[in-house]
């Protein structure tokens, strides 16, 4: 009977039963999955609605406009408890950006340094780097944060007995207090000069690259650029009569006044994040440099490039292609880990959002805000990554 039915089925495709046709089966399967997901979402949504109305919790983002009533330890923008929740969250987000930005810069510098030290031909230096990497990678970052925070609070003296390792620099359990140049009219023009120098650096870099590709003559771009960055602001500073007044912190009563204070929370968070993440960066840098084959370096040397040129023109462009993608994901990791600030009381975005949730009871909106903010960071990072991959792909053969 089966034999008789088979030719029939072949001649008329519509006779294939539904569960034997892969295309139709796929559609049915997808519809079932979709219905299951939507159904679960609906059940959760209706439960939530019922719970919210029963506990009379408000919904929506109206709370952003109401007065927050809590203080934030430190903030980049002016903020007081009379401001709205929206502004509190903005201050928190800016704190997150501040600690992430400084952390990423320091992490990259330290990571590259340790990664190169790990490859050093000096046994002692290479061992020290390896110990640093292993110790930092294998201890939870939260524990490291607690440790540094405890060091600040327990090992450092009170402001009256503050350590004074350098003139104008004080270390005590209120944080790190530094002398800064006193406010002066020269600062803004100096900053503009620095921006101008950076722009000039970029122009020179493009020009030098073009010339090298045309004629093969190289130009000391980095040295010129760094020189410009120092020279232009220095000239402006001299033009304003070289002001040297400093705002030196002084002990008044129980605390310091003047100078700038880096709070123990911020210092501990920055220290913990930078040390932890730079260990991973060091491994990435080491792997990236090792990925450049020995033959490339030998070829570069045999066509007569100097060691600096070998590094700059042959090793780095190839190593960077390996280094940059995992490096960006470490930058993102540092940003995400900065949310641990809440454990040591630094007012980052998560910490402010948590306070907001506790006061308003609007957990869903609060958690959604946290997720949205971090997704923004992640998405912008992946946009950058795609751009970078495209850019380096063009260079590839």
């Amino acid at each position, binding site marked *: 009977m089966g034999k008789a039915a088979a030719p029939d089925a072949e001649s008329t495709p519509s006779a294939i039963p539904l569960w034997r046709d892969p295309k139709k089966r796929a559609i049915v399967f997808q519809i079932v999955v979709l219905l299951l997901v939507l159904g679960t979402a609906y059940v959760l949504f209706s439960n939530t609605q019922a719970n919210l109305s029963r506990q009379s919790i408000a919904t929506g983002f109206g709370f952003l406009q109401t007065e927050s009533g809590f203080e934030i330890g430190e903030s980049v923008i002016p903020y007081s408890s009379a401001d709205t929740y929206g502004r509190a969250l903005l201050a928190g987000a800016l704190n997150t950006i501040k600690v992430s930005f400084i952390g990423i810069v320091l992490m990259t510098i330290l990571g590259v340094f340790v990664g190169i030290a790990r490859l050093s031909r000096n046994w002692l230096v290479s061992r020290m780097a390896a110990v640093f990497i292993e110790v930092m990678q294998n*201890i939870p970052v939260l524990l*490291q944060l607690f440790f540094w925070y405890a060091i600040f609070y*327990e090992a450092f003296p009170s402001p009256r007995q503050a350590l004074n390792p350098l003139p104008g620099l004080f270390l005590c359990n209120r944080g790190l207090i530094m002398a800064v140049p006193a406010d002066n009219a020269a600062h803004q023009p100096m900053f503009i000069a620095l921006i101008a120098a950076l722009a000039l650096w970029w122009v020179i870099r493009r020009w030098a690259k073009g010339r090298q590709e045309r004629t093969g003559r190289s130009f000391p771009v980095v040295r010129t650029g760094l020189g410009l960055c120092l020279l232009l602001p220095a000239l402006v500073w001299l033009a304003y009569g070289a002001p040297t007044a400093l705002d030196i912190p002084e002990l008044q009563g129980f605390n310091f006044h003047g100078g700038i204070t880096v709070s123990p929370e911020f210092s501990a968070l920055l220290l913990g994040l930078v040390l932890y993440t730079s260990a991973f960066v060091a491994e990435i840098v080491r792997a990236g440099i090792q990925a450049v084959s020995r033959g490339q370096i030998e070829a570069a040397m045999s066509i007569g490039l100097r060691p600096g040129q070998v590094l700059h023109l042959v090793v780095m462009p190839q190593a960077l292609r390996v280094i940059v993608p995992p490096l960006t994901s470490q930058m993102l990791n540092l940003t995400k880990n900065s*949310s*641990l600030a809440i454990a040591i009381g630094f007012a980052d975005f*998560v910490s402010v959002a948590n306070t907001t949730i506790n006061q308003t009871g609007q957990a869903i909106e609060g*958690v959604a805000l946290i997720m949205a903010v971090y997704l923004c960071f992640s998405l912008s990072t992946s946009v950058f990554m795609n751009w970078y991959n495209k850019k380096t792909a063009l260079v590839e053969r």
Partner: protein
Amino acid sequence: MTQQASTTTREHLKPPVTHVGVLGWIRKNLFNSWFNSLLTVLVLYGLLVTIPPLFKWAFVDSLWYSSPQACREIDGACWSIIPKNARFIFFGFYPEDQQWRPLTAMILLFALVFYTQNRRSWNRALFPIWTFGLVVMGWLMHGGLGLPVVETAKWSGLPLTLTLSLFGMVGAYPLGVLLALGRRSKLPVIHSMSVIYIELIRGVPLISLLFMSSIMFPLFLPEGVTIDKVLRAQVAIILFTAAYIAEVVRGGLQAIPKGQYEAADSLGLNYPQAMRLIVLPQALKIVIPPSVGILISAFKDTSLVVIIALYDVLKTTKVTLSNPLWMGFSSEAYLALALLYFIFCYAMSRYSRKLEKALHTGH
């Protein structure tokens, strides 16, 4: 004849003393250029300045098993905080007369891990052995069947840390494999849902998922239904880890040559058969080392449950430190705990590197 003569004279010419043995090694590895010589001297000076005082603090002036009052009179480290509070730090609020149970469970876990790390024991028996082991551990921790029941709210200390990371991994792996298959799927709905899930979870910090589990999840449940806090945190850890496992497994799936998929198709295997019999066994073997890496980060990440007030080993240490008797010995307590985490993670990462070498059969 002449050749023999030349070899005998060569034997008499030994290399200079400065090129072999200890001196040769020092010369080659520490003083091979003026720059490296300078570095060596600088590093040695740095070590000489920092190590002796630290050593004195940690080992000479220190107390290892004393009262907190005695600790206040010395300049050195007060390691006594750990042995004197060991019971609370390791077992937390687990009833004292029942603490042999988590202890036995942990010993069982270590025995299983020790048994599994030997590759000769990787066979069909491994899966039932682990299932049986996990069930016994769960029974020991939770009780029932003759043992008094201990609520999960009382699970704390090291057993909680280990439970969260172990079950986090066990629960996340199947989910991660499914998500990876979903992401590689040609069905648009399945593919896009997997991508959205993976990228969403990987884009947010674990702490936001833990918040979700502790404050948002109760709102999702119908009235009267509650799920306890430890289980909710466990689910959050599973959901979080699964996204990372999915990406690792996807890497393994992509490394399988297309011919393998086609061969499976031409044998007439359907999708589940092809995956189960041909593709996954090869792909999962490739991803064992990076999976150990995920296990390490999951183990470290369980410490984040401190923030939603679960009493893992970090939280019990913090509670001990908030006891006025032992206040002020944070460095010692945290260093000891760091050593504990370091031993676990370092052992796992060494093992993962060893596996990577052993499994790298060359393609």
